[in-house]
């Protein structure tokens, strides 16, 4: 089993790790860096709840080899906001009670961030498409859509 040096940035912090070829980004984030906010739901890329942003683009971390993150910038939910300094998307999810069981919420928030970073004025259709890779089994998605609309408005107002 060959080993590789992985240098990458996670939530703004630089890391250098030795990883094996088959190690998944998901496991490196959860088990090596202790970032448990990224969840595992199916391990086959179907549910989307392990999604993180890699160079600003949403990827399923169960389908990405750790080594594919070399020299990339990864953003996980832990890098989005803190209790003292919530991101507007997190605030909006709380406002709408858009989190029920909460298991898909880190991925949903990152999908929302990818959308709103690129498109500050999303239509309903844009919002549906941006979240379509992530399964939420609790909410029926409606409050999630509302939260994203609210966050978009707040982010625009604070620009």
């Amino acid at each position, binding site marked *: 089993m060959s080993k590789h040096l992985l240098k990458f940035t996670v939530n703004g912090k630089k890391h250098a790790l030795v990883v094996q070829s088959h190690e998944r980004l998901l496991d490196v984030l959860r088990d090596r860096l202790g970032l*448990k*906010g*990224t*969840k*595992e*739901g*199916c*391990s*086959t890329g*179907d*549910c989307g*709840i392990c999604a993180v942003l890699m160079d600003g683009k949403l990827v399923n971390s169960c389908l990405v080899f750790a080594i594919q993150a070399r020299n990339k910038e990864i953003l*996980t*939910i*832990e890098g*989005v*906001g*803190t*209790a003292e300094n*919530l991101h507007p998307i*997190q605030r909006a*999810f*709380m*406002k*709408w*009670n*858009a*989190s*029920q*069981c*909460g*298991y*898909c*919420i*880190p991925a949903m*928030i990152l999908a929302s961030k990818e959308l709103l970073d690129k498109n500050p004025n999303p239509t309903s259709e844009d*919002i*549906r*498409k941006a*979240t*379509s*890779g*992530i*399964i*939420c*089994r*609790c*909410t*029926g*998605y*409606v*409050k*999630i*859509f509302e939260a994203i609309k609210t966050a978009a408005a707040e982010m625009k107002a604070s620009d």
Partner: protein
Amino acid sequence: MTTQTTEGLRRPQTLIVGKSVGRVDSLDKVLGKPIYTMDITPENALYLKVVRSSVSHALLKKVDLSRARKYPGVVAVVTAQDIPGINESSALLPDKPLFATDRVRFAGEPIAAIASFDPSIAEEALELVDIEYEPLPTVFSPTEALEPDSPKIHTNGNVAKHLKVRKGDVEEGFKQADIIVEGTYKTPFQEPVPLEPEAGFVIPEPDGSVTCVGSIQSPYHVQTGIAKILSLRSEQVRVIQAATGGAFGPKSDEIPVDVLGMAALVAIRTRKPAVLAYTREESMIGHTKRHPFVISLKVGVKNNGKLTAWEAKLIADTGAYASLGPLVVIRACFHATGPYVIPNVKTDAYCVYTNNTMAGSFRGFGGPQAHFAAESHMDEIAKKLGMDPLELRLINMLRPGTLTATSQLVDEGCGLEECITKAVKESDWYNKRLQYTKLNGAKKRGLGIAIMYHGNSLGPEGNDFGTVHMQIDRDGTTRLRTALTEYGTGAPSGLLQIAAETMHLPLGYFKLDASDTEYCGDSGPTVASRTITIGGRATQMVAGNLGRKLRQVAADMLQSSVDDVEVTDGVYRRKSTEQSVTFLDVVAHAYANGIPLKETGTFTAPKCDYEPQTSQGTVYLQYTYGAVTAEVEVDTETGRVQVLKIVTAYDVGKAINPISLEGQIEGGTIQGLGYALMEEMIHKNGVVVNPNLGDYYVPTSLDVPEMKSIIVEYPGALGPFGAKAIGEPPIVLPAPAIVNAIDNAIGVRLNEIPATPDRVLLALRKATAQS
């Protein structure tokens, strides 16, 4: 159409209850805090992988684990022989072993578990297990399993439960009818898909007890189950619920006992913490799903639309083990006529064993299947009568003063008519039904309706009680804890609102503690949407007692009598002098004087009273009512059905937290849309062929139609402030409403769901061939 006025109903005035407020669990969840089971696993733990049967019915001739035991890195292999207590992990009937010993009854049944510090080693060792099966005759169809010469899955036969409803005389009712309409309806195995697959870990304690942590609904069911397996006293098994990433039913019964039971065996043998997390595939095969039903209906009706007789036969496939199938069948049986007044009823419901994977608890619990059949059939009857299906429903629906199929008197807390009226208005029923008949082209549109009632809480399904503990800390933090768990519903947050309302204190002081058997008394299972109805009553009781205690302390401080003290928003005021003290003053005074600010209480619902042979009487203590309309577009060339709009109107008694309530309604509605159009666990010879989320489809954000939720409030007799169950009901009606809309669009009845493009095209072809 008369509309019952809601004025005059006694509605309690509330300040905090009834307001849309944030859930207490939201902050940790939006921050991605490590709160779920697999986020908090102990260091130096062993990880288990489960050896499962690959065949659906066989004698185990040989189970050779020797190569797996010797595989480098494998620390322990456990089987039934390692069980110090009883080899049982069941929900209701003692029919299911934790590990199969001499015989397996479904493909996926656990036989052994392998533990290693490295989960991938345990997984590799699975390949080294050598099992020899001697096939036994199989049966996969519940109707075939009912036949006398069918293979027997268990020694006492294939019927786990037969329940009857007998009211009046159906033969007499059929004689009075102008027409009789018959039909048979089929529903699939629906997979709950909680996004977090089953997970748990067990820590062996130095004193021989164990601590179990997991993704669970019902801590006390786990405690009882693990104690039995380990031969420990219940109190030696501590069960703590970690944040639970969805449940929907399967995490309430034997499945968490499977997970934690296997881990516990490894933990007590190795004296190391042991972790077991199911893969998605294991979860989909191993846990309970919604029972498939075959429902045959024969209904008599007069030309004026009055129903005269309703005969129903319901056959439920519970798979290889009963789980809660017998109780699912009770609920289905009691709801098999839909929410209608029918003088003569004869219902027979059977819970039947097969060699399929297990069915059990899943949101709705027999209600969706019963209503799919009843509500599809009402449209068929309307078609035969040449009547608007809405009119047929209005003629026959339950209203205050009428009797249900079990001759239970419908009380004033019945807002069914208002639900229908409001949903119909919002859907633009008459106008659209007319417009859509004029559409040309391959894409047709239709509008359908379905209505329901849903017996609240356990009713005949078990002892219905809830226990709540509250204590006030020195800083005023008022903590509530209960073994009624939070697994996504938001209901425990609702308990805090009820407590704050009852004590007249700001909601900000209230916190929810973890569900932990060490600190929470038994509350029964967290199922049947009973957290608000039953737990809410216990909360009112406990908060009432604690509130009185605070007023007594305030009265002492104000040198007054309790009766002269009133409290508003955390300020205690002596009415006669206008002197006041704050909540925090009162708490400080209580602590300084050694007055304990702790209360515990259990609310037990009255027993339901009905005659067991005929099921006549009170079967549930209150009902939730609802009406749903669905508007669809059917592509007659591809068979694809797109839902354009769903309107829901539910009589919830009292909305404790309207925004959370809407969330429950929307979530249940979309699960119901999945049940209608795409969700089906497919078994081939008992083997699940689509145990993954690529081949088992659940609705995504792209499937969500325009939605409108209407809340109607007719206070019920049971719940706090008149609140009724709402967790389960929203999954019931989308399927019949959508299938009725499809029929309205293309004139073809689908008797079986899901209404996949294949089924729609086939039904269209059949209809064309027949005409």
